[in-house]
């Protein structure tokens, strides 16, 4: 019974995301893909053992992966924002 619900929940979210993608609604599609990442199970290097499941460094891996993934985007976004602000300020100044 539990196995059925474990399969059904991701399947429902996948259908929701797929439908949103077909309808070209970016918000619900992004939400669906994000929810799919939450319900996914951890993948271990060894397929038949879960030795890494209780590894104390697992939380650090997740947190640092998130930080390192988002940091370049944030920095490049910051540079673009800085250039945009400087451009707007320059346009307001008399030539």
């Amino acid at each position, binding site marked *: 019974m539990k196995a059925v619900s474990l399969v059904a929940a991701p399947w429902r979210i996948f259908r929701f995301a797929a439908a949103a993608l077909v309808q070209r609604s970016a918000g619900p599609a992004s939400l669906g893909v994000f929810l799919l990442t939450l319900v996914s199970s951890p993948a271990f290097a060894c397929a038949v053992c879960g030795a890494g499941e209780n590894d*104390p460094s697992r939380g650090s891996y997740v947190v*640092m992966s998130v*930080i*390192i993934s988002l*940091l*370049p985007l944030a*920095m490049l976004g910051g*540079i673009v924002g800085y250039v945009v602000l*400087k451009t707007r300020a*320059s346009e307001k100044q008399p030539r």
Partner: protein
Amino acid sequence: MTPADAMLPSTPTRRPVVSSAVLGTLFFVVAEVMFFSGAISAFTIARSGAAPGTWPMPGQPRLPAEATALNTALLLLSGIVLVIAHRLYKKQSPIAHWITLCAWGLGAGFVALQGVEWAGLLASGLTLTSSPLGSFFYLIVGAHAAHAVVALLALGWAWLTMARGTLNPGFFFGSQTFWYFVVLMWPVIYARVYF
């Protein structure tokens, strides 16, 4: 202007909104931030996976977090003084180069005190190969110190040319950008590695 010139469409004057030196330094800083992020990430994961009581390893000295607070204060003060120097330079103040020299002196003080700290740690047995903490410490803090030295060389040159009246503003702003990176990167390293 000849009548033929007057008939040509006038080309609008283009002013760069951000100097090439600042933009180039910013992109370089992005790459350097990712380098430090990778090193700090590896440090965090190694530390969280260490067995209880093995970080630092028995017999190894603990990092002097309290003494380094003074270095941190010097570096942060140096960043603030450089912001003041930048504003004075924009206003063409005659004391701008002296304030820049103050910022440089505070930064040099930070590097010198770090050197003293390293000498003490090496004497107490914390070396690059003595423990994982030693390896990470000298890699991360050493890389930061190398960046600080390069930024100090650039700022020193900016001060010298400013005093002579031959300063290229783009070089000064680029050096400042790099120094702000050195200043702002340090509290992250200090909080992560020393505690």
